[in-house]
């Protein structure tokens, strides 16, 4: 069966750029989170690198939106568009992801419910990081100490959750036996028709209908 | 009148050249009471001009509760305190071009026996610049 295009070049470039920046931010953030690992000038440099990463993390989506606002809007809209397929996914997910009968999972759209949830996590987590981060960066001494302290705490909590989400994302993309084409699809943009039909049936139906029609 | 400050000593030969002392008392000041300040529309931090028959200098006003309007007989008398620690030269010069030295304002009157100048009290005007 033929290969199907799933991710455009710009989508893939964007994904890997964000991956790289995010990992840099996670590493620098983690080093800063661990006491005594970042003394003196080492700590100062790591904070500087963290800030550079933050600028890229904010700048890249902004540029993407300016270049292709329609797709940026669609990216966000898809995260908030929920339907019947999602309820079916929620019911079938535990069994499915632990290797149960794959036929029990109802057909999914371009992104399945799990990906939708992950996208929401990215959007809200990203907002949380950026807002608290910006406040800690530029408004130190301007806002009250209590407000600053809360920003530190919220940034911490978001960090804890973000690492968990990243572990999940990484496991699914790289290790999970059912998501075998996930990683490569983000490299060359394609999945097999078999994969597309079994994992994103509704979307596959739409694009094959379009080809025929 | 011309009080002394803790941070400086005498006229502007020595202490207005010392960074740690200038940090504490950087500029010539004119201390005045709240009633006088209110009458003249002067607030702490304003630059004021203090003038006498002999001349005038500029200084930073400090409005303080420590100076009270005095009732002497039937008259009401206010006073302005000008330390005499600044001059026309040094790391900390005066504010006005003439160096804000208190000695510009003082009368050239001396004690007949010792010739010590009567520097301490004289009539002046103060106004906000």
């Amino acid at each position, binding site marked *: 069966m033929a290969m199907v295009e799933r991710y455009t070049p710009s989508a893939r470039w964007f994904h890997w750029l964000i991956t790289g920046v995010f990992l840099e931010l996670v590493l620098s953030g983690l080093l800063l989170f661990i006491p005594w690992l970042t003394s003196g000038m080492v700590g100062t440099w790591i*904070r500087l690198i963290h800030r550079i990463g933050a600028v890229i993390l904010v700048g890249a989506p902004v540029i993407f939106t300016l270049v292709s606002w329609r797709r940026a809007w669609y990216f966000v809209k898809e995260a908030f568009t929920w339907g019947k397929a999602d309820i079916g996914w929620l019911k079938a997910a535990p069994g499915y992801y632990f290797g149960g009968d794959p036929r029990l999972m109802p057909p999914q759209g371009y992104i399945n419910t799990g990906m939708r949830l992950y996208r929401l996590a990215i959007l809200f987590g990203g907002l949380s990081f950026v807002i608290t981060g910006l406040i800690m960066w530029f408004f130190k001494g301007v806002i009250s100490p209590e407000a600053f*302290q809360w920003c530190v705490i919220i940034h911490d909590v978001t960090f804890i959750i973000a690492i968990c989400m990243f572990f999940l994302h990484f496991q699914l993309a790289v290790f999970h036996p059912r998501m075998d084409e996930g990683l490569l699809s983000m490299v060359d943009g394609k999945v097999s028709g078999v994969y597309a039909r079994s994992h994103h049936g509704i979307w596959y139906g739409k694009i094959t209908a379009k080809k025929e029609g | 009148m011309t009080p002394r400050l803790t941070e400086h000593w005498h006229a502007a030969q020595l202490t207005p050249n010392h960074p740690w002392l200038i940090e504490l008392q950087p500029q010539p000041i004119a201390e005045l009471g709240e009633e006088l300040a209110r009458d003249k529309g002067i607030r*702490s931090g304003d630059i004021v001009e203090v003038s006498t028959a002999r001349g005038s200098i500029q200084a*930073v006003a400090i409005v303080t509760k420590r100076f009270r309007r005095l009732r002497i007989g039937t008259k009401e008398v206010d006073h302005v305190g000008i330390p005499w620690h600044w001059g026309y030269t040094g790391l900390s010069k005066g504010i006005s071009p003439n160096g804000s030295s208190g000695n510009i304002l003082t009368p050239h009157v001396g004690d007949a026996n010792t010739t010590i100048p009567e520097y301490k009290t004289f009539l002046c005007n103060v106004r906000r610049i």
Partner: protein
Amino acid sequence: MAKAILYDATKCTACRACQVACKQWNELPAEVTINRGTYENPPDLSPHTWIKIKFIELEKEGKLDWLFARQACMHCTDAACVEVCPTGALSYHELGFVQYEKDKCCGCGYCAEFCPFGVPKLESGKITGVGVMDKCVFCIDRVTNGLEPACVKTCPTGALTFGDRDDLAAEGRARVEALKADGFSNAYLYGDEELGGLHVLYVLADRPSVYGLPEEPEFPALASVRDNIFRPFAWITWGVVAVGLALNVVVARARQLRGKEES
């Protein structure tokens, strides 16, 4: 044996020899200041100004008091700055004060935001964040060599004294009682119990708020939450999630293989 400084605000004449002695001993540069309408200068503590005297004119019941208050690191026993410092630059000395190793400071500024007294001050680049904090270090190099801190040494009135904390606290309490007997009914020894006990004790003639000190300084709850709860929680959570995800892969792979065998 914990040491402390006792500052008797009622004996202070605001001569500010302490400000100059501190600058001289620690080789700190003078700040460029202007007169803002007060004797107080510099306007605030900074990485180059570790101690300053506040001037307070207080009119009470027709009487005027010119009160003076020392402002510098209070060397808390429960110091929020030590708790939140990510590099360990701030730590407790065995003599009880908060010591500071400037080389370890990474310039994050958390100490400045968590201190209840607003003591640590930073100078840092707004964009790059490169910067370093500085504050009073209790003249650690003098105190560990049998000398008094520079401010104490130079104080001409004996408003500042240095010694064992227990002795100074007792002295302070006695002085407060004497002040009360003299009619200063609000006299108070600040630092006796606050924040586990401060290593700079203040004999005050009036309530702390009159002197610009917080009446009930608190150790910010968020500071200990971060260190004692979040850090271990983060590692535990990540560990559990990682193990869980690994198990998920193992189980899913096993069942998938079994599915292939059966079909």
